[in-house]
C-alpha cells in the first residue's frame, strides 16, 4: 500500500460532498466518466445553482481525494462550471504518482461533461 499525504487522508476519511441518497437527482446536472471494471469511475452532480458539486466515486484513495478536492474548490468559490481545472496542480497537491494520471483524465472527462452538458 502506498503512503498518502495529509490531503488525501483527510479527503478519504472525511469526505463532505459524497452525493447524499436523499437528494432528488432531477434537480441536478449530471455527468460521468470511467468504468468500475477499469478501476475508476466518477459521477458528478451540480446542484441547480451550480454552487455545490456532489459526486459518487469508485476507485483508489487518489480518485476519492481528487474528486473531493475538486468539490471543495467549487464550494469555496475557487472553481466554477465551465472553467477548466488544473490537473497537474491537483496531482501535485495530492502527491499522486504518474501511473495514477488516468484518474485525473477520467475526472477531467466527467468535469468537462458537466461544463458542456
Amino acid at each position, binding site marked *: *500500500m*502506498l503512503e498518502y499525504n495529509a490531503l488525501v487522508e483527510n479527503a*478519504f476519511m472525511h469526505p463532505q460532498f459524497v452525493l447524499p441518497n436523499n437528494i432528488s437527482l432531477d434537480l441536478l446536472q449530471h455527468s460521468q466518466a470511467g468504468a*468500475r471494471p477499469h478501476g475508476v469511475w466518477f459521477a458528478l452532480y451540480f446542484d441547480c445553482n451550480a454552487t455545490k458539486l456532489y459526486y*459518487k466515486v469508485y*476507485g*483508489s*484513495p487518489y*480518485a*476519492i481525494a481528487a474528486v473531493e478536492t475538486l468539490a471543495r474548490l467549487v464550494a469555496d468559490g475557487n472553481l466554477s462550471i465551465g472553467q477548466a481545472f488544473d490537473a497537474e496542480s491537483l496531482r501535485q497537491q495530492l502527491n499522486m504518482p504518474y501511473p495514477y494520471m488516468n484518474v485525473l483524465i477520467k475526472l477531467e472527462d466527467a468535469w468537462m461533461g458537466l461544463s458542456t452538458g
Partner: protein
Amino acid sequence: MNKTIYLDYAATTPVDKRVAEKMVDCMTNEGCFANPASSSHHLGREARGKVEVARRQVSALINAKPEEIIWTSGATESNNLALKGVAHYHTKVDPNTKQVTERKHIVTCRTEHKAVLDTCKFLEKEGYEVTYLTPECNGQICMQQLNDALREDTVLVSIMHVNNEIGVVQDIEAIAQICSDRDIVFHVDAAQSAGKIAIDVSKTPVDLMSFSGHKIYGPKGIGVLYVRETQRVQVEPMIHGGGHESGLRSGTLATHQIVGMGEAFALAQAELESDSLHISNLREKLWSSIKPLGGVQLNGFDEIYREDGKAQQVAGILNVSFEGIEGESLLYALSELAVSSGSACTSANAEPSYVLRALGRDDQAAQSSIRFSIGRFTSESDIDRAIEVIHQQVKRIRAFAA
C-alpha cells in the same frame, strides 16, 4: 490512533518469547556463541550439540530422520535448492549447445509462491520445460490433470502444501503417490503448513520439503530443506565453501537462528492442537460476522475438513473479496488492521492477485480481496475490533459508489 491489530500471520509471525529466550542464549559471550564447526574445542562442540538438538526438533514435527534436515536461510532458498538442485543433478547439458538434453521437464502449479514460480522461470531460461497446472476454481489441483501433464522426461513435480494467499490445502498424499509410482521426484513447499497441519513424511512419499522459521513463531533468516535419504533423491548444491550440511549447503551455521527454529518447531508440535482450536474459533467468529455484510466472497473453503476428515483449508487464512470496493481503497480504509491484499510480497503492486486470477476470479474480485491471517497470539478482542472496523469501513466505502 488505535493500536494496529495484526492479522498478517501468513506473511510472518512474531517470534515466540520462549523461542527468543533460547536464541539469546546462543549469542553473547556468556552464551553458546561458538562456531558449531569448531570441533577442536568444547565451546564449538557445545554449539554443535545445540544445532543437533534443533535438527531433531524439526525432524520430529514431520517424522523425518534428523540427518534428512538441511539448514538454509529460509523457504525461498530451500525452494531454490530443491528445484535447481534436482533439475541440475538429474539432467545433462550438451556441452556444445548448452541445452538440457535429458529429463528436462518440471511440473508445478500457477498458484505457487513466487519462490517456486520465479525459480521455474529461471530453469526455463536454462532449457528446462515447465508445465504450469491450472487449479480448479476451489484452488485444488485435479489429479487427472496432473497425471496427464507427466511425461517420460519429467524429473520433478513441485506443489505447495498450503497456499499462502487462500489457505487451501493440496492433497500431497495423492500427488506423492502419483509421483512415486512414476519415479518422479516430488517437492513440497510447506512454509505455510508446518505447525498448522500434521505432516508425516514416513507415511507420505514426499522427497523434498521446504520450511521457514518465521512462519511458525521462529526467527527470520532460517529455513530447512527436508531431503529424503534415498538413492532416488539427489540434489546438486548451489552454495559451495566448506561442505557443511552433508555438502548440500555450505556456510557457517547460524546457531541462534537454528536453535530458534528448532524451539519453534518443538512448540508447534506440542501446541498444534490447542493452536488449531484457538485459531479455528477465531476464524469462525470473523467469517460469520463478515458474511452478513453481503457482497462478500470467500476465496477458499468454508469448511476446514472434508467429509473424510482430511484438511482442505487451514483455519488461519481467511481470504475474502468485497464487492463494490476498489482494492487499494479497501486496504487503506482498513489501515487499523495489518492485513494483506494479495500475497504479502507483492502488496506494493496494484496488479490483481495472480493466485485469485488463476482460480478464475475477475480482476475486480481479485483486486478487492483481503487476506486476514490469524495466529497464536490473536485474541478474541482483536477479532471483535477487526469486525467493528470491517463493518464500519466497508459500509462507508461502498456508500461512495452506491
